[in-house]
């Protein structure tokens, strides 16, 4: 299941919500910048999106969130990346919108595929309309939304794939895809320079408003499956 502890400590948006006809909605977002202003806008985007999600599909909720938060984003020169997915555990159907997040996919023993779209983040100085896409998870697959700055997304995906193969039993065969792994390695390159291991956060530490502190994230808590 998704764990909201990380969201409570950061300006990023990690919003598990199970109030959509037993579907699970997962939101991962990041408001540009740091400090109190970014944290407040992140909270606003999160709350507004959660509200619109009650009455709209994923695409409609993201568009409505943009219309609602547009003034505050523009007035403060901020923008927000978002990945919003809504999963029906009974069928494996997943609806999603990727607004400039770029690191989400489905992982299984046969490999992985990205759940990404070419949309801009919210808050850009051009008109944009976000439309949702759909995919269906097989029984042996699980969605994986990766936070920015993850050190080794390729390693994580390979680990997930091996785990999925193990879950199938001793006779299962792992089918790796080297091209996909190379693609991920290229993507991770942009985050490598600044990655220095930091000590893990403790409960009494002051709130860290850096929305993309990978080391404080338990990646297991960010995945869910049917």
């Amino acid at each position, binding site marked *: 299941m998704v764990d909201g502890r990380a969201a409570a400590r950061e300006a990023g948006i990690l919003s598990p919500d199970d109030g959509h006809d037993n579907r699970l909605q997962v939101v991962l977002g*990041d408001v*540009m*910048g*740091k400090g109190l202003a970014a944290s407040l806008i992140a909270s606003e985007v999160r709350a507004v999106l959660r509200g619109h999600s009650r009455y709209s599909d994923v695409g409609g909720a993201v568009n409505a969130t943009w219309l609602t938060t547009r003034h505050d984003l523009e007035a403060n*020169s*901020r*923008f927000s*990346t978002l990945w919003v997915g809504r999963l029906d555990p009974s069928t494996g159907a997943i609806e999603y919108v990727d607004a*400039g*997040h*770029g*690191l989400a996919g489905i992982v299984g023993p046969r490999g992985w595929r990205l759940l990404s779209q*070419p*949309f*801009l*983040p919210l*808050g*850009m*100085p*051009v008109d944009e309309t976000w439309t949702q896409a759909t995919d269906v998870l097989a029984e042996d697959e699980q969605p994986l939304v990766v936070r920015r700055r993850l050190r080794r997304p390729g390693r994580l995906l390979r680990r997930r794939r091996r785990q999925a193969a193990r879950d199938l039993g001793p006779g299962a065969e792992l089918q790796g895809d080297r091209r996909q792994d190379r693609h991920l390695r*290229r*993507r991770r*390159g*942009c985050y490598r*320079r*600044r990655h220095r291991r930091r000590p893990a956060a403790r409960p009494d530490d002051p709130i860290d408003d850096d*929305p*993309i502190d990978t080391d404080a994230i338990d990646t297991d808590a960010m995945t869910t499956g049917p």
Partner: protein
Amino acid sequence: MIFNELDEGTSVTLQPSGKFDLVSAPPLKARIDDLVRAGKPRIVVDLSAVDFIDSSGLGALIGGLKAARQEGGDLRIACAGDQVKAVLKLTNLDRILAPYGTVEEARHDW
């Protein structure tokens, strides 16, 4: 942050260096705003000496782009390194901040 500035008449080129992040982005954004207010809304940001950019740096570029376009100009980036290009690609911001290979290419029609 110390950055070089070259006024070429029809456009101004700014060249930040090092990490383009929370610390270094605000001064550059402030300078872009000053240039736009001074009637020089055609700006090229030469990123050849930038080895890292984060969301604050992206925000400064997007904010500068918005300010420049509101005054009838544009903000373009040139000589971006692999890390900058990867971040732009990942966030799809390369749709509105297309990286040019050289400063000359960026200001070719100005």
